[in-house]
């Protein structure tokens, strides 16, 4: 089989290691929903990129748009657009 890149590989590892009780991926958040990022499930390159942009565990996040185009979030006063695939790998604890 072809060698896969980092973040695809991690995909297969996650469920065993991580208890995701109560956490939901960003893509399932409603519009205007708020929460706190708890876990990012991605390879090193992407993780570094997200961390540099302020998307990190512990950061408050608000979903501004959630449509077929992807998810737009507000984090630290910055708007960031994410593709649906990536948005389904960022887990947040929803605040009601």
């Amino acid at each position, binding site marked *: 089989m072809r060698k896969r890149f980092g973040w695809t590989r991690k995909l297969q590892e996650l469920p065993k290691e991580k208890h995701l009780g109560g956490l939901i991926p960003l893509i399932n958040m409603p519009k205007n929903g708020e929460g706190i990022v708890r876990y990012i499930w991605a390879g090193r390159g992407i993780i570094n*990129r997200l*961390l540099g942009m302020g998307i990190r*565990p512990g950061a408050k996040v608000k979903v501004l748009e959630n449509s077929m*185009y*992807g998810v737009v979030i507000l984090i*630290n006063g*910055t*708007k960031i*657009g994410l*593709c649906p695939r990536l948005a389904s790998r960022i887990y947040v604890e929803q605040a009601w």
Partner: protein
Amino acid sequence: MSRKPSGKCSSNSKFYLICPLRFFRKIFPAKPARKIVIGVIGNPNVGKSTLFNELTGAKQYVANWPGKTVEKKEGIRFWKGCELHFVDLPGTYSLSASSLDELVSREFILNEKPDVIIDIVDASNLERHLYLFLELAEMGARIIIALNKIDIAKAKGIQIDIEKLSKLLGTPVISTIATKGEGISHLCDAIVGVALGTIKSNPVLVKYSKDVEEAIRLLEEKIKQKIEKYPSRWIAIRLLLKDRDVIKLVSKVAPEIIKEAEKLTYRLEKKYGQSIETIIAEQKYRLIEKIVSETVKYVGHPILDITDLIDTVVLNKYLAIPIFISILWAIFLFTFDAATFLVEGIDFLFEILADFARNNIPNKLIASLITDGIIAGLGSVLVFVPNIFFLFLAVSFLEDSGYFARAAFIFDRIMRKVGLHGKSVIPLILGLGCNVPAVMATRGIESEEDRLLTIAVAPLVPCSARFPVFILLAGIFFGKMAAIVMLSMYLLGFALAFLIALIVRKIFYKGIISPFIIEMPPYSKPSLKSISLHMWIRGSHFLKKAGGIIFLMSIVIWFLASMPPGVEFGGPGSYAGIIGRSLEFLFKPLGFDWRIVTALIFGFVAKEVVIDSLGVLLGQNLEEALPQILTPISAYALMVFVLIYTPCIATIATIRSETHSWKWTLFVVAYELILAYLLAFLVVFIGNLIF
């Protein structure tokens, strides 16, 4: 290669010929100014290029980083007896070297050891921007913070205690408003001060938690003995983070350290239950949070943001695409209609020039070289220049306003299906006007692979130069069906672009498309100064790079068309005619005779040349002459061929200068020729079966 800048702006300048002071200086040179090298770094959208322009004015030159496709901008300013030499580093969020931009910045800071680094920080978003600062600090750089957009922060009700911030960070903090040019002189003073040592810059280092610090200390001790060139604490941290380049570096001198680092990393990850990147970043952010809480105050409530209002419309599920199309339409009108009078003016000027040369140069051969070769060749480039400048003006406007980020976001899903990236959409659409700016517009795509791929398929989008060829052939051969035939060309062009993207992606890049993350900056009114400078720098860059190659090629084509001496220009006896006739056998299956082959060869210069040369070769009345040598089926095949094969020399030259790779350029040229031939053949084959 990057050029050494010092010679270009000061001593070598030809201005001393007209300027008495320069002339005086030429004879009695002043005491050489102390040269200070300054790297300018910051997150994307922080106003870096605006500040850079304010710092250096138009004294800039653009090149590529040695061996990289990333653009390198440099500029010079003289300040208090020092020569400030600014280097614009690519906008990055961090320095983890996961992208080419980050790698370039990092290598510059580590290897060229600039005297000062200016870190531009957005005052209204300190928290995120200080992350980069902390990474810089670990690399042992001497940093000055330019606290930019302080006016916007104030309007948002954010108050920053600058003195305290400077104290906590250990570096000078200068507040600036790049768009208004405020704070520039303070910044320059600080640069000179830090470089000469009169102002101190000891950036604060992150103190990680006990076990992380312990791991760093263990590694640092060992590294100190082996590597002296780089700061050992930084190497230790990067080793813990499994940084590929650092591992490579260390494994050359001390492979045992890497095993040790792996062990330590594993232990830390297990203890914290998180990846090492997250652990380190979280602790950095903890320090940032502390600093921010001590220095930033929020007064009053932020008013309703106009950006949010615009975004609810622009990103709306149903409205997004119609809005995008109308904006695109506006760009097209602006680029092609508004620039028409300039295009025609330049055309007219060149005609006068050519007439003048033809009538006044006695030697016929030289007259022909100058008129048919050089003037016609240069004319064919310069005629595009107004379009290109107008397009860059429009694109710079949209780029600075913040809309491009939204467009890329909307189209990511669709482009992804065909193996491209959201940011490929703008280049492809621009290609409808001209492939040259299309290729240049790919600069916005970060991932090298995505960018090369977009460049490879962009020439398949039918540009405006192919339009006259289509309209002529469709009009002559298809009568009432002409419009449908034309439309089929455009559809085929886009379909092929997507198909090739899909195939190349599968073959070369194993089906990996980098995930899409994009910052959507607040909408802002672009400043005229900024966008016109932007247009000028990019436009003149195109002229220099592509102009040289086109100039050369037009002489070559002239030579082929008019040699050996005495033949009719482009006639059967000329070298071009001979080549055309000798290649005729290849094109026989397509139903093209040698005159069409010759016209196609000339079409390498530019697609509209195909019609001109057919006119020369067949006599002026194409409507009567063409049906005699082409059947409707082979006419359609000719249209397909013209659609697909290499657009023009200007595009080839641009691909070469943008990719920095002859290999990739040749690949594009080759696949397009082969594809053009195969598809044209397919058209003839199927056409003959049906009709």
